[in-house]
């Protein structure tokens, strides 16, 4: 049995499942960064619940060690929300691709960002639908032609601007090609008390030949190194979240520490609901009200 004094090592997160991602997939970098962050936080696999959606990102939790609820397409957020409410001791991380988060699950995202449950939401944004073989996604660059969009993509969402608009309490962007930086962001997100959105730019070598590793590398710059940027300035954050093209910011874009939904529900700091036992007789007083 593992004792508290044993240090968590990266091997503790090693999985035996055969990986079903393409060679060169940006997900490998994200996986390494996630393991690094969890080890640095000294979280044990059984303390972590990953709730994923469908897409290549949906397979992610199977490739490390943790509790896993691989949900439906677009639905990891509601399940993760409720799991956290009933067991506040869990470290809850939801994982989606761009289709999951910004397409199918868009309504859940909007409300979860506003609701502010203490969880981390990783969105792997490769700007294309890879699992279904290369259709446009909500964040595909305008004009990018795909099998289903022969005239080029017509819409291109700026999800982090949406996040700032929803007053998401922690909004960050990382790059799968910069594991150290991404691991640092994931750590910050997990430590953050509130709903933390971490979008990860992820090259898809199979279906996205435009937004390649090189394309992102030439454009990303770190906000942490920008001296005069204050992520608590919502107006500035909104502008930063809209920045896309020749320069793409990564790092912490917005932060607003505010009360948790768990506090509002009254579950913070109490015995987790999953451990409460119910005695039917305690409800006699309610039945009296119907006399």
């Amino acid at each position, binding site marked *: 049995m593992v004792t508290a004094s044993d240090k968590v090592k990266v091997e503790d997160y090693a999985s035996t499942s055969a990986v079903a991602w393409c060679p060169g997939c940006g997900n490998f970098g994200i996986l390494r960064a996630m393991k690094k962050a969890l080890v640095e936080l000294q979280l044990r696999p*059984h303390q972590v619940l990953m709730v994923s959606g469908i897409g290549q990102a949906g397979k992610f939790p*199977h490739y490390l060690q943790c509790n896993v609820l691989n949900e439906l397409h677009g639905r990891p957020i509601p399940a993760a*929300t409720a799991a956290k409410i009933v067991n506040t001791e869990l470290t809850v991380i939801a994982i989606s691709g761009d289709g999951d988060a910004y397409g199918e699950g868009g309504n859940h995202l909007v409300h979860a960002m506003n609701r502010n449950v203490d969880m981390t939401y990783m969105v792997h944004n490769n700007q294309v639908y890879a699992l279904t073989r290369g259709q446009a996604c909500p964040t595909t660059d305008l004009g990018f032609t795909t099998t289903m969009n022969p005239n080029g993509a017509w819409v291109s969402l700026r999800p982090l601007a949406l996040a700032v608009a929803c007053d998401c309490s922690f909004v960050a962007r990382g790059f799968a090609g910069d594991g150290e930086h991404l691991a640092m962001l994931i750590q910050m997100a997990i430590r953050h008390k509130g709903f933390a959105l971490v979008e990860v730019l992820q090259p898809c070598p199979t279906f996205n030949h435009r937004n390649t590793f090189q394309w992102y590398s030439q454009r990303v710059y770190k906000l942490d190194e920008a001296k005069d940027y204050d992520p608590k300035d919502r107006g500035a954050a909104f502008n930063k979240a809209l920045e896309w093209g020749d320069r793409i910011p990564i790092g912490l874009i917005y932060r607003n520490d505010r009360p948790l939904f768990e506090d509002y529900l009254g579950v913070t700091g109490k015995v987790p609901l999953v451990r409460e036992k119910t005695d039917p*007789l305690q409800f006699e007083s309610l*039945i009296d009200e119907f*006399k």
Partner: protein
Amino acid sequence: MAVDISFVVGGEAGQGIQSMSFVLGKTLMRGGYEVLITQDFESRIRGGHSFARVRAAERHIQATSEKIDILIALNAETIDLHKGEMDAAGLVICDRGKLKTGDKNGDNFLDIPLERLAAEKGGDRLMSNIVTIGAVVGLINYDFGLLADVLGEEFGRHGDKTVEGNRAAARAGYEYASQHFADRTSPRVAPRGPTEKIMMTGNEAVALGAMVAGCKFVSGYPMTPTTSILEYIAEKGRRFNIPVVQAEDEISAANMVVGAAYAGARAMTATSGGGFCLMVEALSLAAMTETPMVVVLGQRPGPAIGLPTRTEQSDLEFALYGGHGGFRRPVLAPSGVAEAFWLTVKAFNIAEKYQTPVILITDHDLADCYNTVERFDLKKAKVDRGQTISDEEAASLTNYKRHLITESGISPRALPMQGNSLVVTDSDEHDEEGHMIEDAETRTRMVLKRQRKFDRLQDDMDEPTITLRPNSEFTLIGWGSTYGAIKEAAELLEADGIAASVLHLNALWPFPVDAVTRALAHSPKAFVIESNATGQLARLMRAETGIKAHKSILKFDGRSFSPQYIVNSLKKEVS
């Protein structure tokens, strides 16, 4: 003759119809009567026409009567719409001067200056509805003290002044009726003594059942007719640590339930057909991940938005089959308020024992009606969490397999953070550990495992309600909220010299094949009675038992079955 009296209280939305009917019903219960209150309202907040039926009898009743003994008309429309239902000796209470149009004259009209008495005695002309209730209590020679008690309880939260105003208004009505109509041959309803009964709605019974069963998480999106389940637990659950989360939509609500249940909390949502449409994807997920989940489906007429505030039983097949991928799920259908409580407790137990979604299907009729029932004996409420792994076992558990293939098909359930083991499950087909697979062999074994776990489910189900009458000419078959009407129809037929047996189902799946087959062997001519246009129970019965219904009696106008309606339809069919 035993007392069996029906009132109709009618007026515009916003005139307090619901509150008046509740006060009258509770007052009658306190004197030892069994009471049923049904609401008929439009999908609006003000205006229009709303009414409530209050029926009180010495025996237990679960259906409305078509005959009105006392009609309380707060507007002229009430009279126009209901005069045809009046008993020959029936009386109409109204404030004649205030009724704008309509037929308001006749020997049976009792004119009471409701507004004037309300203003003079109660201090507010809006209390005319309370004056009316006082007048009714006077008219039937009932105990005013019982009404005064109920008014105190109902208005107590608004302060003593409000209580006194309402009591004064009620007394003014009571005295007016006693003085002016003492000579009327009105029905006499003498108090029969104290009662141990309780009175609540179907929704309240479901909400209480969920709390008693140890539900620890509720999520939902408001939808008629089940919103009050969510509201009740939201209000009362605060004292018992039961959070209710208002989700952004029903998709979210259902997936929240899956997430909470996966983590180990008993969890529930409640909706109607339209919301259930959005939930079936998560229902399928719960089946695949073997997650216990309770969904209350309160039916209303469809398709689409249909008649939002009315009743129907047209989601039977949807409840049975909704969701992709072909999976079974228990569907429980309470026949009344008491069963709504007990079957809700059962729904939670079955959901965990068989690690499955369970649907509790009700309808507007049951959801919103108040009925007197025996007080629930909470000592009989058992929480059975099924095959769980204890904390001690979990502490030393290694290589835990959430979907372990067992003989029964049920895998012992550990929870995340119960020990150091990992709980892994997937909406993709998975192996015993819960990891995604593609191979044909594992897939086949997993499908069979999930099916096999229901092999013994029938043993946990309650028998359907069966009343066999000697030499019965036919069997009346129904399910869910229509029980009261069907049972009483059979009694009316019996009084007419026609013997009819009754078979009433409280579960649609697993279908009680043996019980139905046995009952129909007694009297094979089957009349299937249901509130839908497509004869869903008749089709289900034929699919499950091979027995074809003789005739279906269908009603799909959004209104409930009355015993008289069933009797008339049946006589038409057999003549």
